[in-house]
């Protein structure tokens, strides 16, 4: 019990602390790092990863995994862009984007909950399928969303940045962070997610319709990928077919750094949020120190491992308690 409390408080403190320290570090040693400009670009590069990370946090807490989030996001964005160029109204397009991603999530749910496929395998499959599908649909052509100054540029102002450069995206993200947080902590949905991650069979034998809730979890994750797709489109305008795989690992890294356990049952949304920010700070910071791109990759990997080592060390006690 004590262990648990202590661990929990530590959890609360440690991650944000690390974030702040890292930020300060780069302010001191980075070139023009301490500037609203940089801060904004840190936010920018967090949005889409953040949304994906929120989504997959639910899944990881149930003890599952979703490798398709990255390609799912890209596919939805691609098809969205395709429809837009075909003249569909932009708002309708955005709606469809979210819908598509949600459907993919739902399919994952069916595979896992109904067909009993291991999540890793099911979503590995859908990862490849969505990546291929998006490319096929768009005849492997780059798709473009309206830039801020075209007639339909308004959506960028809402989801990404206002004309005068205010990062409205952060509001969009925080709003849905709260949604995710409430979902996870204050609703049956979230409670069952934890319970399933902790011991699925006993939840089933408590008369809970496990497969329903599991499908729900994967669907919600898909939904968040849809939201990610919107902000991705708003940020980068151009969507390139056949991309998106690999992004899932960034999101997962964020979740892990945030202290969520891959074996399920344990995790927090705030942790994920901080994890996502931490990665962006690292990325932007190393750049500002004039380190070429690949140092990012290296250090992100390092951080993932350190974060979890720290976690293990911290919770050793808590874990030690009777296994028999």
């Amino acid at each position, binding site marked *: *019990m*004590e*262990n*648990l409390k202590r661990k929990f408080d530590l959890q609360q403190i440690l991650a944000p602390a690390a974030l702040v320290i890292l930020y300060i570090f780069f302010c001191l040693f980075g070139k023009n790092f301490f500037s609203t400009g940089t801060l904004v670009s840190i936010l920018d590069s967090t949005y889409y990863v953040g949304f994906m990370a929120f989504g997959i946090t639910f899944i990881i807490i149930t003890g599952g995994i979703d490798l398709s989030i990255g390609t799912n996001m890209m596919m939805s964005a691609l098809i969205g862009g395709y429809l837009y160029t075909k003249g569909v109204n932009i708002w309708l397009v955005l709606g469809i984007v979210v819908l598509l991603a949600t459907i993919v999530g739902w399919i994952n749910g069916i595979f896992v909950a109904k067909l009993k496929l291991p999540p890793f395998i099911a979503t590995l499959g859908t990862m490849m399928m969505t990546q291929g599908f998006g490319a096929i649909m768009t005849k492997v052509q780059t798709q473009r969303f309206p830039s801020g100054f075209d007639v339909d540029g308004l959506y960028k102002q809402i989801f990404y940045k206002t004309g005068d450069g205010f990062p409205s995206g952060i509001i969009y993200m925080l709003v849905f962070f709260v949604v995710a947080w*409430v979902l996870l902590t*204050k*609703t*049956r949905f979230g*409670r*069952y997610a*934890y*319970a399933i*991650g*902790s*011991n699925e*069979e*006993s*939840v*089933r*034998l*408590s*008369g*809970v*319709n496990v497969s329903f809730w599991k499908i729900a979890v994967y669907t919600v994750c898909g939904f968040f990928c849809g939201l990610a797709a919107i902000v991705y489109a708003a940020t980068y305008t151009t969507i390139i077919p056949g991309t998106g795989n690999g992004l899932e690992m960034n999101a997962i890294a964020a979740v892990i750094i945030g202290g969520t356990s891959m074996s399920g*049952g*344990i995790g927090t949304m705030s942790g994920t949020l901080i994890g996502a920010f931490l990665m962006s700070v690292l990325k932007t910071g190393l750049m500002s120190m004039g380190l070429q791109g690949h140092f990012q990759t290296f250090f992100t990997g390092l951080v993932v491992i350190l974060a979890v080592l720290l976690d293990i060390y911290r919770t050793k*006690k808590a874990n*030690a*308690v*009777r296994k*028999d």
Partner: protein
Amino acid sequence: MNSGITAANGTIENPVILEMKGIDKRFQGVHALKKSHLELRKGEIHALVGENGAGKSTMMKVLTGIYQADEGEIIYNGEKVHFKNPKDAQTAGIAIVHQELNLMNHLTAAQNIFIGREGNSFFVTDDEINVKTRRLFERFKMKIDPTEKVGNLTVGKQQMVEIVKAISFDAKILILDEPTAALTKSEIVELFDVMNDLKAHGVTMIYISHRMDEIQTISDRITIMRDGEYVKTLVTKETNLDEIIKAMVGRVIYIEPKTGSNIPDSAPVVLEVRGLTSRDVHDVSFDLRKGEILGFAGLMGAGRTETARLIFGADPIDSGEIYKDGKKLKIKAPVDAVRAGIGYLSEDRKRFGLAVDLSVSDNTVLADLENFTRKGFIDDRKVRETCETYVQKINIKTPSISQLIRNLSGGNQQKVIVAKWIVRNCDVLIFDEPTRGIDVGAKSEIYKLMTLLAEEGKSIIMISSELQEILRMSDRVACMCEGRITKILNIEDASQEIIMKYATRRN
């Protein structure tokens, strides 16, 4: 008991082969062993008893090098030894059968038994070990195919494989930690034969069990532990049940059978099962009356759990009907059963009863969460209040309701599960082995609780492999054998012998 074996004499004067002195072991938070002590004489069967958490398993894990003692020494054959890991202990001739099954389901029986002993060569073949294994099985008259994947064996057979594995070290000292928890009467008899055979070959054995009848049957001496401390060592023939239990729990508990049922035949039938059939259960029919406790007796593998799982919708039904309060139920999944007010307490808490990472309160409301949600949100206040009332009502020993359930003792975990079903106000409760692996103290509390529930008008099905338990609690006793109900006895007519007769009747 009907196994008809009596403790062989003469071993009590044998020389001391092993001595554990002043063993002290702390885990985070728990002081598991406090200067504890144990003495073995060559060739004896030494029972080690104590309530749950008394430290029996830990003591054995220290002896076999799985845990390292913080203090104390082990003297084996007159010299001080220190086992750094299980291998050391094995090579020194000390083997153990662990409390929980520890087999590799994807490997064959032979591969399991000889894992880690494939020989020093980097390359391995199975021919040799298959032969060896077959010999071992034959020696103990076990019908198991050495090349069968262990995952395909029944629990009983798996347990036997474990035991054979331990024996196969041709150990000087053999430790059996609750080997019978999952065994049938007949298998237990087999086991005892094996043990006596080994004893005749001069093997010393430590035998841990919660079943007093077995202990009195098989052991020469009994060492009692309480809260990690050594209490005393008794010579089996010179002691009696009360003395042992008193030493264990520090108070006397009598288990006297129920003399008669006060449930009138006129009492309304709550649950009506007709012709229930599946792969392992055949044409099971019975009525359950309001406020009654219906005991289900039978050997292991008799199909009681399976029957329960079928009624509860945990496994698919081939045919048969289930009526609740006269209404026919369509049960496809546990959801349906629970909706109909049926609750099931599994025989395997850890795997089927608890969400171990969750708190006491989360587990308590798990089955009834929809009634604790307002406008889609969980009403934490209501949850807290409810849980606290039950913690009091059936006195669950926990520091707080936000305590992780995995940190509770078996007995208290069981109580939380009971609470879970009461909260869901189920009026039919199926207790499957409600006291398996639970100590005498906790047991009697569970019994009280069940009686209370029955008096409150809930109807209970109690599956149990312990006949005293059946006899003490039940109003009627359904005897099962090979998936069939062979007889439903009124408690007045029931006795251990009669029940065993029906439980072993083949038809």
